[in-house]
């Protein structure tokens, strides 16, 4: 604990409760009959409400199970469909939001915090700070230097492949762009489509742009480009698209008519050789084939930056500015920050990793272990294009622009000029 801070007796008790009680409950982890949220007698902190976007079955169960171990207050979860929650976040936070809500780290958190829609949780961080690396703390910090977010889980982006296919053909993970290109060429000669690719949904191509940009221009450039501080007509950006265009012949064709799930299927069916995506690609693999899935980080392009940065979007919790039970909400955030809570999440959802450094990784699958290792090696963790920039810029400008590049990779100059003009209209 941070010595600079006088810790009140109540906080000490809360901390003890948050640490001790869940751990005790996790001990009997096979108890899988979820108690109805709010069905217990209220703790001394009254009722805390959570607005949750965990509408899919696994994440939903995960949150319910984690909250079940929280005894200081009665918790009511209001689950809203994932996309609906995201699209309405603006109106939601200005209306009558729940005390705690699920959200994403990075710029996307800062954007709402800067508009005064979130409660400062720096005091929570004084207690939980020791459980997180600096990278996680940075991603939870607003532009004013205060913390507004508590990380729970995250998933790294990497290039995925099937071990059995690679062993059979004798492929080795490439370390540089030249090796990567050579490998792709070999795959093509072997009758495989080298790089699975899909962008019907609009966002997967952002992952390719991000990684190329961070490998060529580094993390700091990524951050300032996303914050609207760099020009898109800068030769540095052009180089990203030029490199991408060079790789385009190895990408799966007809990408704009394909969803990421379909591209994931093509990897599972051994039609494609590798696929740059988040770890959730594992969902497209049948249980029996998951052990066959492996990955490498996107190879080095510019030696000045090596492979020091990756995209690894962090999901977590914030407290709304209009929260009625701030004390209860903060206690709940501390609870959700505990390793024991995050262990439940990673056990139930094999596509994610726990953000807390204290989380127990012994229960991780081989893929999760490799994922954690990858992240621990990265100096910089980016949040993904649409989480590192203004949401309106990402959806109304970047999605159509990247799709236009994918369909006409030759027209880079006019595309970049168009992005720059539109950027100027949004970042006014």
């Amino acid at each position, binding site marked *: 604990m941070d010595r600079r801070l006088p810790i009140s007796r109540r906080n000490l008790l809360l901390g003890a409760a948050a640490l001790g009680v869940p751990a005790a409950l996790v001990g009997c982890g096979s108890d899988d009959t979820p108690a109805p949220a709010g069905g217990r007698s209220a703790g001394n902190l009254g009722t805390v409400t959570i607005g949750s976007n965990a509408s899919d079955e696994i994440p939903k169960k995960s949150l319910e199970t984690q909250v079940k171990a929280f005894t200081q207050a009665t918790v009511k979860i209001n689950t809203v469909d994932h996309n609906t929650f995201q699209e309405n976040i603006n109106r939601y936070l200005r209306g009558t939001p729940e005390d705690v809500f699920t959200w994403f780290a990075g710029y996307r958190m800062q954007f709402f915090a800067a508009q005064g829609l979130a409660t400062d949780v720096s005091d929570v961080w004084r207690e939980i700070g020791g459980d997180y690396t600096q990278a996680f703390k940075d991603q939870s910090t607003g532009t004013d230097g205060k913390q507004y977010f508590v990380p729970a889980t995250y998933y790294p982006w990497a290039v995925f492949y099937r071990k059995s296919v690679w062993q059979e053909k004798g492929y080795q993970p490439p370390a540089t762009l030249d090796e990567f290109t050579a490998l792709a060429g070999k795959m093509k000669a072997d009758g495989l489509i080298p790089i699975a690719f899909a962008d019907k949904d609009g966002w997967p191509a952002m992952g390719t742009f991000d990684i190329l940009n961070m490998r060529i221009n580094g993390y700091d450039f990524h951050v300032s480009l996303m914050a609207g501080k760099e020009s898109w007509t800068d030769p540095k950006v052009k180089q990203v698209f030029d490199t991408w265009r060079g790789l385009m012949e190895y990408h799966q064709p007809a990408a704009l008519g394909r969803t990421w799930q379909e591209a994931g299927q093509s990897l599972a069916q051994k039609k494609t050789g590798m696929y740059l995506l988040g770890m959730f690609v594992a969902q497209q693999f049948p249980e029996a084939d998951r052990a066959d899935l492996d990955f490498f980080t996107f190879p080095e392009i510019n030696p000045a930056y090596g492979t020091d940065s990756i995209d690894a979007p962090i999901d977590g919790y914030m407290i709304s500015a209009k929260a009625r039970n701030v004390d209860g909400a903060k206690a709940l955030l501390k609870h959700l920050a505990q390793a024991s809570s995050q262990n439940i999440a990673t056990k139930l959802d094999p596509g994610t990793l726990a953000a807390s450094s204290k989380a127990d990784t012994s229960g991780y699958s081989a893929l999760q272990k490799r994922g954690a290792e990858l992240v621990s090696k990265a100096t910089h963790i980016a949040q993904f294009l649409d989480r590192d920039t203004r*949401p309106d810029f990402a959806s*109304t400008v970047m999605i159509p622009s990247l799709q236009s590049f994918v*369909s006409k990779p030759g027209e880079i100059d006019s595309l970049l000029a168009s992005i720059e003009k539109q950027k100027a209209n949004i970042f006014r």
Partner: protein
Amino acid sequence: MAVKTRRYSARDVTILVIGLGMAIVVNVGLIWGPTLASVGLSATGWNGIGPIEWVGGQNYHDLAAEYPPFWSAVRNNLLWLGFLGLIATPFGLFCAVLLDRRLRLSRVYQSALYMPVVLSLAVVGFIAQLVYSSDYGVLNAVTGLTVDWLGDSSINIWVVMVAAGWRHVGYVMVIYLAGLKAVDPALKEAAAIDGADERQAFFRVVFPTLRPVNVIVLVITVIEALRAFDIVYAINKGRNGLELLSVLVTENIVGEASRIGFGSAIAVILLVISLGFIVTYLSQMFREER
């Protein structure tokens, strides 16, 4: 005379005021209010949270000059209108005429053509994906082609219009069938006696009597074209070649950080286009009544 000048009792006036007043309140509150608010907001830059900032015609300039999806959307809306009006609607009429001649199994054809009408366009969008998907779609599987029907922005609007037309044809057909049933058979007989062949009888005699039906079908066609949204949204959120004005309005206004001013400007343009049709239609109607 003095009695006659006062035609309404106090009670009549009260009822009139309440009745009319309700109608006016509802009309202003639900139709004119939002419309004028959209026009007003279109001259501002507002993100839905911060202060509303006046930017004048800036949004319109940005739209026309710097927002590539806008012109694709205008083009697609016009294509949509043209396709439904010039191809799908006449085809619906053609089917109705054929079926009206009591072909064998005409009930079967009629049901088959009408079937898609019960589907929402969003559902038609899902079905279209099963047909057109380049990886697992029926069309490529059967023909052995490898065309990216939905992802190639130069062709996807056409295949989606065919899917939308699939439903529209049945809709139009049913309306025309009803109209044709109402045509007096004596007219056709008279035409036949005068020596008209079937084509002449249809175009010179039957079709002109269908005028009221034609107006309804025209209105339906225009409405269907302007409100098209769900099918492209179901397919790829109305991006990459499938842009429509209605989609751009949604894309800009409904979102994490709304560009409410910019989206309103697009909505106003859609309104102006709609007004063109509405005014033409209404003036036509009023002229007839006179």
